[in-house]
């Protein structure tokens, strides 16, 4: 278990204020925050790369605040991977083991195991400069895991990858975590990454932890407006009635809206619906009526490069988002009737 107690530190333009976090054994913990929130500083503090006067870091029953990085038993994958360009892939992976004077047979076994686990066996003799982004990420992971760390620290590990590779590697990271069971701290600004990977999460903003909990807890009960904004201001619908309709589906009636969903274990009390997951159309969309609703625009506000629309559907006021250019093309006005289509796969259920 990692415990961060009252940590305050300033590094360059970034600072952390009074951070208190507990990360459980074998947990996949994600720190979500916007650029400049201090995510990298937090991970660097856990790695022992910064000295600080205020606060403590504990690993199980040991205070590791003053323990140098080389004695912390951590694996660290920085955002740009920082593979050593003067070593090939195999030499990068074995770097840590050689630095710790591991016997040659251990080194060989670890390289073979990790190369197999991360599907990089054919790359072992390659120059790291010739690798793709996804390959670099796997090699950096193998290098970090080679020394059998107690904690794995991942600094925005998927941010420099294309969408398809990032999606694939999200699954791979999760699989790796389940196979190895290494306590993992992953920082990101990406909401989807957080939703898909986190056992628990913390929302970090301007150097301060705003909320800690499971993704469902944070998404359904954002503690304040800052968290709500960061997690995408979800529409929370309270279900008045839920009835099975066969074929593994249920119909949830929420404030006059009938939403058809796959059957859930433990029932459905609330549904979180993110503004970005609602399609808007000014004309009636073709096809079945399922999860499509007619509503009236009650408010329009610009939000960053988007337009946020409040749409009244039954008793619910739903927040939806449109890119500026599409909004202008559609020429939507307040009091106008519009059609909403819900992305079923993106619904979050509580």
């Amino acid at each position, binding site marked *: 278990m990692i415990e961060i107690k009252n940590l305050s530190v300033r590094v360059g333009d970034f600072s952390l204020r009074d951070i208190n976090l507990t990360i459980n054994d074998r947990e996949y913990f994600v720190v979500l925050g916007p650029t400049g929130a201090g995510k990298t500083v937090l991970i660097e503090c856990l*790695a*022992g790369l910064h000295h600080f006067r205020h606060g403590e870091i504990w690993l199980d029953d040991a205070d590791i605040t003053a323990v140098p*990085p*080389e004695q*912390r038993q951590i694996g660290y994958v*920085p955002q*740009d991977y*920082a593979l050593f360009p003067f070593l090939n892939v195999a030499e990068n992976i074995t770097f840590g083991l050689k630095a710790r004077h591991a016997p040659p047979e251990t080194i060989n076994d670890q390289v073979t195991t990790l190369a197999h686990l991360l599907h990089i066996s054919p790359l072992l003799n390659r120059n790291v*400069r010739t690798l793709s982004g996804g390959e670099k990420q796997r090699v950096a992971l193998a290098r970090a895991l080679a*020394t059998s760390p107690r904690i794995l620290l991942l600094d925005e590990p998927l941010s420099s990858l294309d969408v398809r590779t990032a999606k694939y590697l999200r699954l791979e990271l999760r699989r790796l975590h389940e196979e190895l069971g290494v306590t993992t701290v992953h920082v990101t600004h990406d909401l989807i990454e957080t939703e898909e990977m986190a056992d628990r999460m913390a929302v970090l903003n301007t150097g301060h932890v705003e909320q800690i909990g499971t993704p469902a807890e944070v998404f359904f009960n954002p503690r304040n407006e800052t968290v709500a904004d960061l997690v995408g201001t979800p529409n929370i619908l309270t279900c008045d009635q839920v009835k099975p309709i066969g074929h593994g589906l249920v119909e949830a009636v929420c404030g006059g809206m009938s939403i058809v969903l796959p059957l859930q274990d433990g029932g459905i009390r609330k549904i979180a619906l993110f503004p970005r997951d609602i399609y808007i159309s000014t004309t009636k969309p073709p096809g079945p009526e399922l999860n499509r609703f007619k509503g009236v625009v009650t408010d329009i506000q610009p939000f960053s490069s988007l337009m946020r629309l409040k749409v009244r559907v039954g008793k619910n006021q739903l927040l939806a988002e449109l890119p500026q250019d599409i909004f202008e093309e559609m020429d939507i006005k307040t009091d106008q009737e519009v059609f909403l289509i819900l992305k079923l796969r993106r619904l979050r259920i509580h």
Partner: protein
Amino acid sequence: MDFGRSHNWKGITSERAFKAATISCLVLLTFFFVGIVLSLVTYTNWETMISTLVSPEIIFAIKLTVITATISAALAILAAIPAAYAISKFNFPGKSVVDTILDLPIVISPIALGAALLVFFNTPLGMIIEVKIARFVFEVPGIILAQFTVITALAIRLLKSTFDGIDPRYEQVSRTLGCSKLKAFMKVTLPLAKDGLIASGILTWARAIGEFGATVTLAGATKMKTETLPVAIYLNLAAADVEKAVAVIFILIALSLVALISLRKISTTRYHL
């Protein structure tokens, strides 16, 4: 529409004029330096040249120059590595003052530096060093010390820019992989700085080869004793033996060209990430 077209032409013309002016300046300067070297040919008697090259005095000067420059460049690089790293990576009180002081030997006249060294060896501490450790004044160690004094600041400056260009993330990752600060420096930073180290070594060596002012002031200009190649040029010109002096100049130019060609080869094969 027409206005736009004429406006574009005007832009293109002024762009070309600017390019032509800068390239003309470059070509003129190149001709100036080539002209200086070619003028040496008018004073070259090839028989004298060959006999000069194999004369014991010039062979002595070549050996002495190469040996002293190699030793002083090696010492300068060894001293500059930690100093440049400290200036590049750490913040400490008085850093800007130290940085400025280390630049002084680059801008101060080498004769002034040599004179300062000569004065130092006349102080009680300097005299103790002369008696107990090694004799520098008018001796070969004086050549090495004079060259070292002139080139170390240059080595620090060159290596600082090398270390500045190395992302600290590499060292940080190596620390988490089990390296102490020193081990991270040796195993990661130095290999990453390899090209910069070699380039700095070559440039400081080339600068040491041509060093004259501080050398002649501290070590003197004694034939077949402290006679480096620049000192040989000075002694032969003083004796009005221009042809011999020109032969030595050609040797110095050849050594400098070898250094510059090596440097260019390294700079084209450096890491690109």
